[in-house]
């Protein structure tokens, strides 16, 4: 009787009665009995750059296909060679979801869509990552927008004499234009239903094609943009007669902060040490990017180091730097959108070179690239290669820069050694270039910045799941991350103040906590403690890690969660307890002043700066210098549903029956109408004169 209640709620009398009259015949609502909606899915979307379109899209009215489950090579081959009910929608287990198989099936015109099983904790069969690793990223990430280009001795893909293929596991899957919708399914009962539907109807019997009815799905994820960024930006700016948009630039905000406010200084010399990490990561399915080794480790270490230094400022062990005494400011910076051709760092460099950094509204002294004394970047640092960390440097820098870099390296390895952490020079045996890093963009702006990129890989990445949904599979060692945080804090301090402070040690619990919050669950006590009360309240309803995909620049609810959270964390770690009533903004030169969840008024010199590619300021959408990535818009009717596909013969029979019935009734009616008088005359042959009927 459930359908009665449904109708009751609708409360339309006519439909109500309709149900009384005919429900007896037809049961509940037809659509629900034909279709089974699948709600737990994450879709691959279309992105565009200056020259290409990548990702997935469905046709405007959706793509329909017969489900075929691929959990073995045998099943894959069967579909490729024998499946006769094209188009199919293949349901891959994680292991078989590869670029090669997808391409083969698409080229054979077999596919109208693809699905892959996913479970965050691998609780579902067929969701385990391939043992050999899985990285849908380029083998040479961000190469064209880096320092070394795609030719020359240091270029990655150019196979120069000194080149390193950084992500040698990369399949470029994320950068293909598949032209079909591809979804990841993650709800266990829906997955089981779909597999059951496949087994009941579609599974080949003794290698032969099954009979109708077949189990099918319809996937809808129609992307508005096409071709490339110049095209879609042009169309977006064309006079609009409809509400359709086409694409939006990728972007968010960078987070940066300083130990002591810049406000009273002005920079004339190499006055600032920059320590950076990147905030974003990605995956084939943007929503399913855990970003563990790639981004969370770097962020964690940098924040932990910031806390160590912050603790010293809070107990007055270190004072604001005296620039005249050749002391330096320490600045932390977290770049967003680095995956997509260095959006965040290239924008900060662009702003610095144009005299727009920091933002003029902040009333801070102008910071130029030449004011950067040292640059220290934390890249992926969680998975040690040869049991040590590697400090990469630019092999092409000039002599005087190289000596400063050497100083940096010595300081770093000295402090590393003091906590039993090996930090080595990867160029010892063979000179090699910098790995993909934000630092490359700074060097592009000014080649004489001394700097190091700390990473866990000597040459090729140790992370076999770089920029994939499995990035959080590998075990990260908290102990050495803690040691690294200590080392970084000590190094920064010595470089800034020219003196050593042995009273520094990162807190292992804090590192564990940070890592857990970033990788496992954002709804954690540390996060709730550092943010404001209502933000903490909102966090309580969240689950899983903060999304790491940078997303589009014009987000409805402001910057992404990871940006906001990093800002609060940095403020909490480097800021001071202001003890002022009302907690007014701007107290004591502090730009970032807020009440945390416990009601403490915290003030810190923490800021955000735009992370939108300069290409969109210059309106140079075909730029080869700056990132041109945009994300296509899509409609709000995305969905996937499962159903049975009827035998076309049976459908034809239905139609034939209908036509026959109509024709028969035509003959009978015409006959009876013509002969009405004769037919409907009582036996005594009484006839009625009827002019009309003749």
């Amino acid at each position, binding site marked *: 009787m459930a359908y009665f209640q449904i109708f009751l709620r609708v409360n339309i009398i006519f439909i109500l009665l309709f149900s009384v*009259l005919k429900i007896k015949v037809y049961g509940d609502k037809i659509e629900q009995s034909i279709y089974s909606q699948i709600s737990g899915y994450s879709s691959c979307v279309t992105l565009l750059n200056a020259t290409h379109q990548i990702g997935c899209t469905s046709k405007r009215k959706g793509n329909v296909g017969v489900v075929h489950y691929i959990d073995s090579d045998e099943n894959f081959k069967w579909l490729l060679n024998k499946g006769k009910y094209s188009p199919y929608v293949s349901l891959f287990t994680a292991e078989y979801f590869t670029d090669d198989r997808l391409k083969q099936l698409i080229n054979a015109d077999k596919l109208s869509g693809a699905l892959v099983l996913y479970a965050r904790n691998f609780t579902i069969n067929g969701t385990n990552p391939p043992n050999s690793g899985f990285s849908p990223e380029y083998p040479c990430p961000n190469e064209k927008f880096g320092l070394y280009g795609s030719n020359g001795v240091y270029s990655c893909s150019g196979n120069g004499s000194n080149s390193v293929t950084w992500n040698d596991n990369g399949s470029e899957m994320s950068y293909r234009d598949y032209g079909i919708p591809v979804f990841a399914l993650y709800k266990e009962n829906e997955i089981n239903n779909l597999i059951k539907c496949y087994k009941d109807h579609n599974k080949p019997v003794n290698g032969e094609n099954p009979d109708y009815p077949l189990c099918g799905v319809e996937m809808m994820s129609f992307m508005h943009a096409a071709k490339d960024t110049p095209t879609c930006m042009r169309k977006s700016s064309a006079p609009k007669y409809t509400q359709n948009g086409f694409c939006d630039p990728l972007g968010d905000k960078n987070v940066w902060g300083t130990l002591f406010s810049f406000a009273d200084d002005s920079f004339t010399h190499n006055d600032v040490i920059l320590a950076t990490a990147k905030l974003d990561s990605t995956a084939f399915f943007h929503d399913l990017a855990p970003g563990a080794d790639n981004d969370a480790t770097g962020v964690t270490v940098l924040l932990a180091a910031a806390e160590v230094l912050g603790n010293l400022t809070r107990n007055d062990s270190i004072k604001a730097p005296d620039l005249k005494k050749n002391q330096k400011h320490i600045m932390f910076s977290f770049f967003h959108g680095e995956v997509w051709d260095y959006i965040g760092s290239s924008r900060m460099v662009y702003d610095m070179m144009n005299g727009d950094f920091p933002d003029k509204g902040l009333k801070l002294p102008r910071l130029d690239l030449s004011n950067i004394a040292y640059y220290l970047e934390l890249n992926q640092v969680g998975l040690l290669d040869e049991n040590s960390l590697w400090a990469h440097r630019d092999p092409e820098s000039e002599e005087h820069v190289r000596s400063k870099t050497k100083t940096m390296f010595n300081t770093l390895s000295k402090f590393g050694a003091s906590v039993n952490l090996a930090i080595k020079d990867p160029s010892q045996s063979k000179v090699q270039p910098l790995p993909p890093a934000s630092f490359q963009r700074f060097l592009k702006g000014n080649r004489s910045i001394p700097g190091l990129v700390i990473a866990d890989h000597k040459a090729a990445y140790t992370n076999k799941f770089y920029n994939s949904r499995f990035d959080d599979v590998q075990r990260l060692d908290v102990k050495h991350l803690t040691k690294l945080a200590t080392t970084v804090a000590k190094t920064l301090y010595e470089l800034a103040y020219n003196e050593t402070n042995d009273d520094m040690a990162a807190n292992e619990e804090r590192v564990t906590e940070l890592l857990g919050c970033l990788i496992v669950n954002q709804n954690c006590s540390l996060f709730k403690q550092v943010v404001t009360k209502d933000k903490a309240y909102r966090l309580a309803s969240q689950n899983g890690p903060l999304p790491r995909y940078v997303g589009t620049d014009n987000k409805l609810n402001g910057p992404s969660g990871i940006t906001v959270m990093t800002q609060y964390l940095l403020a909490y770690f480097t800021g001071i307890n202001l003890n002022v009533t009302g907690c007014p903004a701007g107290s004591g030169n502090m730009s970032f002043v807020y009440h945390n969840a416990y009601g403490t008024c915290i003030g810190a010199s923490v800021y955000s700066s735009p992370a939108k590619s300069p290409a969109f300021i210059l309106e140079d959408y075909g730029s080869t210098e700056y990132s041109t990535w945009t994300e296509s818009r899509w409609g709000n009717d995305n969905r996937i549903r499962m159903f*049975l596909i009827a035998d076309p013969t049976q459908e034809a029979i239905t139609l034939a029956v209908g036509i026959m019935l109509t024709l028969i009734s035509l003959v009978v009616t015409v006959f009876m109408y013509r002969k009405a008088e004769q037919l409907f005359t009582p036996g005594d042959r009484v006839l009625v004169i009827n002019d009309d009927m003749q």
Partner: protein
Amino acid sequence: MTLMTLFGCIFIAFGPATVIFLVAVARDHFHVIIMISSAFFWLLSLLISSIWWTIVSPLKTQLAFGVAFSVLFQELFRYAFFVLIKKAEDSELVSLASKSSGLFKHKTAFVSGLGYGIMSGLFAMVNILADITGPGAPGLNGESPQFLIISALLTCAFVLLNTFWGIIWFESCSEKKYGYLVVVFGSHLFVSLMTLLNNKESYLGSMLSAYLVLVVMAVLAFKVAGGSLQNLHSIFARKLPSDMRSEDVTVVSPTT
């Protein structure tokens, strides 16, 4: 693909009714009006039974009661429509028109039945038709794959049944043959209740009963309207020369 099913179902459910309308009714504006008013009366019966259904709470739990009352209201409104037509027939306008046709009375009955049937058929089928335009076919949760064609066939049966019931009902009312009333009401109730037996796998009961009753009602309506086997025979056996006809027959006024 499923456009085939859609059109198949439309043809099955409404093909006969449409053909009947086009051939026998459309050219006759008076009867078009009758048909539409009759359809409106079916809507009224729907309204009343839904109000009734909302007010009387036991109906909500016992489907059979709801069905019975709905049938009752439908037949009551059929009677009300008959009364209305009877009233109208007494007026000058209709009697003038009716004089032109001897089959007028039966045709009015038949047309009002058709209107009743088409409206109920539309209400039964439109929701289904709206849902089958997509790529899917029923059967995911164990429904019969024949579901749609069965629905369409049942709708077709109900449309035709209503037509025949209309003829019988009007005849019984005007000729005071109250036995027929019982037959109509009883068979309507029977067929409607039989559809309650529909479940996911089997539609056999409702289909069989609907079509059996349909055949019986067709024969009955045929008889009531003045048809007989003899007439049928005579049509096929020999054709009456048209010039002979006027001599042989007694001409009667249709309104007697």
